[in-house]
């Protein structure tokens, strides 16, 4: 109850970043951490492709190859793609709904640190006896002690910690979007990216508990001698497959829906047109999210569930093509007759549409159970999911980064480098993955570390590896671009793209309180409505006043560190270490509960001053 300070305890440098609860800074943290894991996962991919460049190569051994494919998949899905999505959600969603902050700033920070320490824990396996090597799906019995190394323990514990972070991050965004919208921002006026973030967060909420249970069961089997997946003691390996995919399939939509949201924003802005069929887009997003929970067993057609299950899950899967098709046509019709510009953001968005459509069509092919018996575990599947995840999600993320970079960092990315980035990455991508369809149809199985000469597989594999160099160059160009932008002294304007939504009504980067006055939203594309009405900016829903802000805290960092320590304790069966870690974590929780955060206030005179400065 102590009188609330009107100023935050000023922390600077690294202490500021470790304690921040500001969603914009947490967004940047997610981007940096996710970006580093993306580079690690990319390096793993490069090594995989080098090994497969020619028949019977021995660049890396078979064991290392298994570790690389496992870590490539795990890293890209959990530690690179999801965090970069969270980076954009953090940076943009509160701005798009006219909020000063997220609903739970502390929980937001905790979510980031849990993900970060979980990711670090998994990757330390490289130095502590070998990385996990049972594939990113870690199917039992292969993942049990008898058949796999120590590395799986890192996978099991690291993903539990990181998954917990993702789950609370998802809850935070759901509450933020439900409760923190500015006056007038009804659900049907929310920008599509916010809608996609909302549905994605819902999917996170319902999907992650299933993988948590799966991982706990696997952990009990591996560490405590339980028998869930041990057929000798009555266990059943299909249970792992079900639990993994009950999570794993919604996870696919967790990844792709935010990309759909980004593409919708970018295509609409750069066509200078309102998004075509807004309400059908919202409906399609929600429907994809809902159906996403009904289709998981299409990953298990060859397990032996029988014709009834296969038919039901195959049909449900094909249904998803309908709302997805609606989206594709809506984007095309948004561009139809628009004044289209092609900055890099829109290049990636327009490149996304045909690429993703190809991935979607191979998806429908895979949804046909009898045909899937042919495609299953072949490179056709590898080609399919890279078309949707790289050609879909990663293109979407690049579009989003080029589009929102000025809002996040206050600097524009260079367009010339950007165009080189797009074309090298785009061409490299198609060179890499298009031949893989045919490799798969010719019978090349996935997850093999080499192949023989004279079976017609040489050319496809060689082209595929050449393509990876294109994607590598594209990624390096992006890093160069970010560096050049950081070094440049030119500041980005508040509204560089002639934007339509609320985030473009405030300075780039926004001040810590986002909106000096909460805006009043008077329609879809809130800023565009005001522009059309001839207003200079938003009208406001409140007079200038004192703004309450939460204080930063070290607790999220320390709390996550506690679980990180406990994780090692479990792996090495050292229960003193488990105890220490748990005491740290629960101690922090107790402190957080007992000590109220009074926060601090920013007074109107400071706002004026800062508003001008920013």
């Amino acid at each position, binding site marked *: 109850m102590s009188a609330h300070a009107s100023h935050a305890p000023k922390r600077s440098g690294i202490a500021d970043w470790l304690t921040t609860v500001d969603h914009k800074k947490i967004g940047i943290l997610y981007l940096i951490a996710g970006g580093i894991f993306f580079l690690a996962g990319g390096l793993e991919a490069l090594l995989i492709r080098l090994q497969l460049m020619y028949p019977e190569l021995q660049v890396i051994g078979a064991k290392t190859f298994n570790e690389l494919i496992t870590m490539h998949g795990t890293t890209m899905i959990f530690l690179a793609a999801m965090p970069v999505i969270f980076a954009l959600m953090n940076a943009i969603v509160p701005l798009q709904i006219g909020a000063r902050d997220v609903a739970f700033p502390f929980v937001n920070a905790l979510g980031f640190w849990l993900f970060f320490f979980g990711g670090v824990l998994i990757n330390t396996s490289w130095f502590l006896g070998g990385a996990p090597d049972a594939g990113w799906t870690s199917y039992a019995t292969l993942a049990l002690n008898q058949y796999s190394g120590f590395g799986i323990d890192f996978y099991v514990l690291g993903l539990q910690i990181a998954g917990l972070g993702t789950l609370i991050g998802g809850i935070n965004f759901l509450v933020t979007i*439900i409760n923190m919208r500015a006056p007038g921002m009804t659900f049907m006026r929310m920008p599509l990216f916010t809608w996609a973030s909302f549905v994605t967060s*819902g999917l996170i*909420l*319902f999907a992650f508990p*299933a993988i948590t249970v799966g991982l706990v069961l696997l952990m009990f089997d591996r560490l405590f001698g339980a028998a869930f997946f041990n057929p000798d003691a009555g266990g*059943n390996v*299909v*249970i792992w497959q*079900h639990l993994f995919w*009950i999570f794993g399939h919604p996870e696919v939509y967790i990844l792709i829906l935010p990309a759909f949201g980004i593409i919708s924003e970018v295509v609409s802005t750069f066509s200078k047109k309102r998004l075509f069929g807004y309400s059908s887009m919202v409906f399609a997003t929600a429907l994809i999210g809902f159906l996403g*929970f*009904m289709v998981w*067993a299409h990953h298990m057609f060859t397990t*032996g*569930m*029988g014709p009834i*299950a296969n038919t039901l899950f195959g049909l449900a899967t094909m249904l998803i093509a309908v709302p997805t098709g609606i989206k594709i046509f809506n984007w095309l019709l948004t561009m139809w007759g628009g004044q289209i510009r092609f900055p890099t953001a829109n290049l990636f968005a327009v490149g996304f549409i045909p690429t993703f459509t190809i991935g979607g069509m191979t998806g429908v092919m895979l949804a046909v159970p009898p045909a899937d018996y042919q495609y299953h575990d072949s490179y056709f599947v590898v080609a399919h999911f890279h078309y949707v995840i790289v050609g879909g999600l990663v293109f979407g993320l690049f579009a989003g980064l080029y589009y929102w970079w000025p809002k996040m960092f206050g600097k524009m990315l260079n367009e010339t480098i950007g165009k080189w980035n797009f074309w090298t990455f785009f061409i490299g991508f198609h060179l890499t993955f298009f031949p893989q369809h045919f490799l798969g149809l010719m019978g090349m199985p996935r997850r093999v570390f080499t192949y023989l000469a004279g079976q017609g597989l040489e050319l496809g594999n060689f082209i595929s590896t050449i393509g990876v160099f294109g994607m590598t160059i594209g990624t390096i160009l992006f890093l160069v671009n970010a560096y050049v932008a950081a070094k440049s002294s030119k500041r980005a304007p508040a509204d560089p793209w002639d934007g339509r939504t609320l985030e473009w009504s405030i300075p780039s980067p926004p001040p810590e309180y986002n909106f000096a006055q909460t805006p009043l939203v008077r329609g879809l594309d809130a800023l565009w409505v005001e522009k059309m009405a001839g207003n200079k900016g938003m009208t406001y829903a409140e007079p200038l006043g004192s703004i309450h802000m939460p204080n930063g805290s070290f607790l999220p960092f320390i709390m996550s560190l506690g679980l990180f320590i406990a994780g090692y304790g479990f792996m090495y069966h050292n229960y003193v270490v488990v105890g220490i870690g748990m005491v740290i974590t629960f101690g922090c929780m107790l402190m957080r509960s007992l000590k109220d955060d009074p926060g601090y206030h920013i007074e109107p005179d400071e706002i004026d001053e800062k508003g001008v400065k920013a």
Partner: protein
Amino acid sequence: MGAHVHDEPRKPKVKHDGAKKHVIAFIASLVLTALAFAAVAFEVIPAGFTVPFIVGLAFVQALFQLFFWMHMDQKGHEFARISIFAGLTFILIAIIVFVFWVWW
């Protein structure tokens, strides 16, 4: 309600339910529980029907508690309902699949 009218000049915006409703929910829960136990203990209904019967009782009791004790019946709980029922729907599908398509 009436007891604190003096220190609360304003009319309460929300009508608070009394203890009665909750005691009724408690008794209902007890009866439902007793029925389930009795169905198993005395085998009063055909054996093949017992499982659906007691699972049905469990759902009725769960709804009682969610709506009365956890106030899910009240206004402002729209997202609470969506959250619980969406989670329930998704996981019920999974449970059905686990019943039929784990062993074959």
